[in-house]
């Protein structure tokens, strides 16, 4: 009886602050309790980006339009890389919209610790809230750009009748979630390993640029004839190909590789969160 009361007493603490924490001590309930904070961060990101600009959120769509035109000129006409018969504007706009979401989320989440050192040094909240908020605010921006893409897509679909989408369009939420998870997983991992030794941070933005060429963004996978397996190993490949297949009816859809991507994503995200949780406690001592 006495032992039981003692046991109860020991369990009665709400918070335990120690140096040790297991790798899988991941508190979803706490994360949920801070959901309002997540929404505030998202709101802040969106409001502050274009404050004191005249065009405001229109800038969200100017960027992909200009990049698309550039790609049409450079890759479509000068380099003459084909698009599998898909109208060039549509092909590049779709790819860019998807790619931007991935690369921007990765770039910003991979700087979570260094960018927010001053806040992290002053107040506690589950650190994961910040990178998660970047994923969500990135998604808002993505949705605006995606709406632009849908308008162009509908034009080619209904008026030009030059593309033949299929039912795999239903997979778009899965593709998006996977993209978000890959960029978040990578970002968490990178920000965690660069808190103490900054070396890797220099590689990130450069590496993301290189990664774009290792992913079928500006070219269709069908253009690659040899050693295609290496491209498939990139978890982004099947996501982009599924996207193109679903919307344009032109990509290469492969269920095994899509499942591989999803599995890869799950592992990467878990690893990212684990490492991130491990680092977050001591980060402020080495920042």
């Amino acid at each position, binding site marked *: 009886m006495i032992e039981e009361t003692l046991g109860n007493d020991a369990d009665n603490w709400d918070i335990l602050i120690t140096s040790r924490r297991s790798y899988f001590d991941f508190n979803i309930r706490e994360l949920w309790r801070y959901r309002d904070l997540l929404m505030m961060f998202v709101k802040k990101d969106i409001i502050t980006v274009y404050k004191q600009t005249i065009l405001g959120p229109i800038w969200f769509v100017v960027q992909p339009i200009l990049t698309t035109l550039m790609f049409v000129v450079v890759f479509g006409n000068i380099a003459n890389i084909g698009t599998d018969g898909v109208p060039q504007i549509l092909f590049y706009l779709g790819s860019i919209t998807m790619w931007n979401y991935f690369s921007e989320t990765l770039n910003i989440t991979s700087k979570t610790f260094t960018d927010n050192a001053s806040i992290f040094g002053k107040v506690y909240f589950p650190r994961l809230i910040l990178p998660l908020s970047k994923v969500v605010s990135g998604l808002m921006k993505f949705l605006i750009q995606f709406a632009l893409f849908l308008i162009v897509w509908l034009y080619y679909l209904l008026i030009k009748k030059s593309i033949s989408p299929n039912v795999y369009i239903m997979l778009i939420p899965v593709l998006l979630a996977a993209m978000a998870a890959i960029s978040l997983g990578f970002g968490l991992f990178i920000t965690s390993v660069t808190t103490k030794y900054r070396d890797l941070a220099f590689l990130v933005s450069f590496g993301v640029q290189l990664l774009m060429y290792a992913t079928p963004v500006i070219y269709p996978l069908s253009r690659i004839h040899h050693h295609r397996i290496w491209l498939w190993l990139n978890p982004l490949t099947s996501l982009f190909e599924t996207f193109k297949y679903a919307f344009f009816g032109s990509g290469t859809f492969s269920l095994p590789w899509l499942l591989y991507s999803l599995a890869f994503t799950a592992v990467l995200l878990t690893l990212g969160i684990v490492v991130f949780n491990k680092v977050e406690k001591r980060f402020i001592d*080495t920042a």
Partner: protein
Amino acid sequence: MIKAEGVSKLYRLGQIGTGTLSHDLKRWWAVTRGKEDPYLKIGVENDRTKKATSDYAWALKDINFEVKQGDTLGIIGKNGAGKSTLLKILSRVTSPTQGAVKVKGRIASLLEVGTGFHPELTGKENIYMNGAILGMTRKEINRNFDEIVNFAGVELYINTPVKRYSSGMYVRLAFAVAAHLEPEILIVDEVLAVGDAEFQKKCLGKMGDVASHGRTIIFVSHNMQAVQSLCKSTMYLKAGQLQDYGQTSAVINKYLSKEVKNCLQRSWERSDAPGNDVVSLLSAQIIPRTDDSDVILISTAIDIEFRFVVHKEMDLCLSFLLYTTSGNCIFNVGTPTEVLKPGEYHSRLKIPGRLLNDDIYTINLLFVKDTSVIVYQVEDLLTFEVADEVRTAQWYGKWPGAIRPDLDFSLL
């Protein structure tokens, strides 16, 4: 309720970078073999007066304490005593190297006012932003919104971006949000240093309110006034170690008597007494006219006594100069010039209470011949600190002025 058990924190001194990787590898290797972290052993006490002998220092070493629900705890100590480190651990910004802190209830910490304020956001948006960062839900903020705006006095500017606020408004708004937190435990660093006297009064009043509602407050400050008036019990840290923990006034007295580097007495044998062939000084002593031993408060009258030997007959006087540590001379008084025959003499200067301000003072003593020629002088003879008393007013800032005389000033 908070219980700290053997909390310690080790910091690496110097640059993070070169050498860290090899230390990290050694540490990792030791820990994977199940051995103790080799660098925990070589940490030294965090004493800023000595040159570091190790690359590692304990910012906190083996801190144990318990705070009950509804208590107000003050933490005092000199710079570098480990106060901020302890606060950071309690607010979960960093984790201890060893030991554990157990907490019951929600913690909110105010290590800074306005954490997360964004200059582009309006006052209203920042209230929600800052509140959320400090751990409030949207509902809680909604409930307190009007009160926060009122407390800060920014009704007119609530939809203006805070970058256009005056610094005073900014700070008031930030504190207002924090003051309306409703955690069981509130941790406050010296944020009271900001704002004008009226606002300070408001803040302290608010904190007193919070405490009286059965919530726990942990308050770190250099300001003995504020600690005295706000905290029931107090913890005194020195070089990362817990020196004393108990009832506030007792701990503050201990702190003052230990930390104040008073040099109240010096004396010499005739053979090695400082001086020359005209005079030599035998002793100098400050005697506080109080029962409370060493602590000199602004109300304490003190006597300063000198013994000296005159070797040659001459017209001599003693000139006494009182300096603050910043080098300002507060006053200079002299004895009347007299013809002194060779022999031993004794002199006493009385400084009444309620003359000096709270500060650290040093004494220079001059022996002057024929009212004009300095025959001998001793600089920095004695040092003493005058501490402030508990004030009755709700204002705890530094009292301005070189002296603080108790003059009759009243309405007629």
